[in-house]
């Protein structure tokens, strides 16, 4: 280990906050060598990004303070070198890419200018920089590199922007590339492409790659070694295969156990009556069709999953059914009555029966209302449960039902974690005793272990209360565990639909097959097998 290119030893970082000192990371150590990929795996709040930020000198100090430890790059302790020397290293020898490429590209400059600046800032001549930028833009697989240079960040898609970020990071041929959740914001198929690109580039340049992620599938796909972090400490370290198959620490076991896509596939029972039937629904934004003749049927007590990549129209579908958007044509029959043509009074009574859980609970809960107010708002609107004591009791019951405590009712949303907030949103939906809950990416913003808990909660609600679910997701693993029927959408059209078993075991359409193939399995061996079989026929 002594000859590692980059080594973090015994690093402890504290954050000073109004509530006293928080130990963000404690005695963390890891190392990475040329040509090697190290994954730092952890859930939000585990401190997985902190050590990488310390390497890049990106920590805001204060509130952060490095208490102990050293960061050795080629044997030199970075924490003892001057700010100027570190600036010279950053970008040139150690580069970094981020989760949200749009946030890290300046919207007012063309991407070409920004990539070239990366080199000129380190004192290289502009014409050489331009040539290298062109070469790299072509290398990361963007069409028409010459024209791409003159475009602005908003003119690229999310995956293309991440490619641009990678190109920018590689301009000066760094020895180490740190990637902080590089594919989290991307669709599965794009994620697979970006990971493949990173691997290719690593093989070409021999750089060391440090990948920070919460996704076991990403680890299985790309990492040689992995360190698992929890609560600021490294709980487990080893090769990717070892950690997956022989986890020692209970946290690692829990994390692996929570990975979706391993449960029994459910067989739908079509005997129950149809609750919601959508017929030939169409919707266009300007000239862009968002929904093209979408038809589906949801039976009572079942869950129907709508799967697709971003821009496939799956959220538009939910919003149109809920009349948050107006449809151009088509019908959505709720127990035989058309929701699209319904008048305001009928709609109000239906609003009680159909509830929605949104993707991001941080945004879908009013920050200025207490949990009690949030949950009881539906009763105010529909003039239900007028008695205050009865209300209090019912709110307490609902909170217990979703796994929270009755005394949480007096708190405000910001005092809860993401998973708890989503539980509050579910309790709000349950308050009106709906027959259908529409979940728009309801678990995609949550950590894996919390995701598993929320899914289990939704499943038990379905079984106990007979609630139906329209479940919109991009994560196929979650869908496999939860849905009876799956509908696959692409650019506003239904590509394929059928019982979950059929879709997963015997997909007919090439798009569905591609989607399934791009979905990463948490088992490194399975991933390796897939890579082999994918490259064999080519």
């Amino acid at each position, binding site marked *: 280990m002594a000859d590692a290119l980059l080594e973090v030893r015994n690093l402890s970082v504290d954050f000073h906050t109004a509530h006293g000192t928080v130990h963000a990371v404690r005695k963390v150590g890891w190392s990475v060598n040329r040509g090697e990929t190290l994954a730092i795996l952890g859930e939000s709040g585990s401190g997985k990004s902190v050590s990488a930020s310390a390497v890049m000198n990106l920590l805001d100090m204060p509130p952060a303070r490095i208490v102990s430890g050293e960061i050795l790059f080629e044997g030199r302790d970075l924490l003892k070198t001057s700010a100027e020397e570190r600036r010279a290293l950053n970008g040139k020898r150690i580069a970094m890419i981020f989760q949200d490429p749009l946030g890290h590209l300046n919207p007012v400059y063309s991407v070409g200018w920004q990539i070239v600046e990366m080199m000129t800032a380190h004192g290289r001549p502009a014409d050489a920089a331009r040539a290298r930028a062109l070469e790299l833009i072509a290398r990361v697989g963007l069409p028409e590199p010459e024209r791409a240079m003159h475009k602005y960040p908003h003119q690229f898609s999310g995956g293309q922007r991440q490619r641009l970020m990678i190109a920018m990071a590689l301009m000066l041929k760094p020895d180490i590339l740190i990637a902080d959740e590089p594919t989290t914001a991307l669709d599965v198929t794009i994620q697979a492409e970006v990971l493949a690109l990173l691997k290719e580039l690593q093989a070409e340049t021999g750089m060391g790659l440090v990948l920070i992620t919460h996704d076991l599938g990403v680890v299985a796909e790309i990492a040689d070694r992995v360190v698992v972090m929890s609560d600021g400490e490294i709980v487990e370290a080893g090769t990717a295969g070892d950690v997956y198959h022989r986890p020692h620490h209970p946290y690692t076991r829990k994390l692996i156990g929570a990975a979706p896509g391993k449960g029994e596939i459910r067989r739908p029972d079509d005997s129950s009556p149809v609750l919601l039937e959508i017929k030939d629904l169409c919707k266009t934004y300007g000239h862009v069709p968002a929904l093209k003749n979408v038809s589906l049927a949801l039976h009572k007590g079942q869950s129907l999953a709508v799967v697709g990549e971003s821009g496939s129209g799956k959220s538009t579908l939910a919003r149109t059914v*809920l009349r948050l958007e107006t449809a151009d044509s088509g019908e959505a029959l709720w127990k035989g009555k058309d929701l699209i043509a319904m008048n305001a009074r009928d709609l109000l009574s239906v609003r009680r029966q159909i509830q929605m859980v949104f993707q991001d609970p941080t945004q879908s809960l009013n920050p200025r209302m207490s949990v009690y107010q949030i949950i009881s708002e539906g009763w105010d609107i529909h003039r239900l449960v007028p008695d205050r004591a009865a209300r209090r009791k019912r709110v307490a019951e609902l909170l217990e039902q979703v796994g929270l405590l009755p005394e949480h009712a007096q708190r405000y949303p910001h*005092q809860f974690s993401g998973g708890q907030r989503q539980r509050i949103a579910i309790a709000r939906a349950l308050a009106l005793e709906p027959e259908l809950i529409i979940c728009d990416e309801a678990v995609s913003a949550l950590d894996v272990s919390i995701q598993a808990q929320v899914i289990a909660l939704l499943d038990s609600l379905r079984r106990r209360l007979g609630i139906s679910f329209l479940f919109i997701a991009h994560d196929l693993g979650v869908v496999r565990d939860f849905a009876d029927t799956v509908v696959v959408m692409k650019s506003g059209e239904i590509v394929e639909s059928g019982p979950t078993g059929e879709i997963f075991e015997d997909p007919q359409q090439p798009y569905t097959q591609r989607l399934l193939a791009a979905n990463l399995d948490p088992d490194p061996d399975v991933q390796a097998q897939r890579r082999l079989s994918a490259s064999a026929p080519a």
Partner: protein
Amino acid sequence: MTDLTLPKSSQSGARGGIAALLAMLWRDKVALVSALVLLVIVICALIGPTLLGDLATDQNLRGRNSPPFDLERGWAFVLGGDSLGRPMLARLVVAARSTMMVAAGAVACALLIGAALGLVAGYLGKGVSQVIMRLADVIMSFPSLLIAVVVLYVLGPSVPNMILVLAITRIPIYLRTTRAEVLEVRERMFVQAAVVMGARPGRIILRHILPVVAPTLVTIATLDFAFVMLAESALSFLGIGIQPPDITWGLMVSQGRPYLTSAWWLAFWPGLMIVITTLSLNLLSNWMRIALDPAQRWRLEARSTTNG
């Protein structure tokens, strides 16, 4: 990380009400002092004219422009005397009433009308919004002092007319700010969640949008307070505002202007009062913004009582 805030703030939710607010005010000493200053000014405005009304209008030509901090002529002359030998202290106290009435009245009217129109323009459809916004443009395209001069000339100068005129000229500021914020807030997820639950527009506007917009409006209103006081003095200076012997701080400033080189205190004390009032309002509104925001409240609750 968020769980760390749980123990402390949860208590305040249960305690609730005015007691909790007062406790938070006690912890922020700057805001506490501001609140006390404002309280004193309000009391002056309420009972000052009854107690000191005669004293403030009593001319004493031997005491013309008598310097401040001289107790020879009695306590009333501690801040000096004005150009007709009337005690400055008494006049300041008496002037508090008209000043506060005009400023608070104009700001409150402009705030209420502007915010209401802004909420409607922002939340309801395009047609209503167009009408309201063009009205605002019409008001804004006139120089505000010109409207004031015309209206006051026609209606005759009086306190209610002053309030009316100043309110009308300030409405577009609240209207535009509110509308801009509403356009952003209405797209937020929790508003959509309320729509899905079946909430009517009135409920969404009042329960979900207004609380988010309110802090901005309160901040603008406190800044506007000083502006309105000075605008009022400008009108009084032109002779179409408050008429002597009635008196306001703004009018006192403009009356003291010719004597700036010989008797600075004539303009200085009323000017200082305007500064103190607006400063206190600003500090208090700053505190209120934090105290009324559940996500920020811990900043005040976490504070120890010794901390200023």
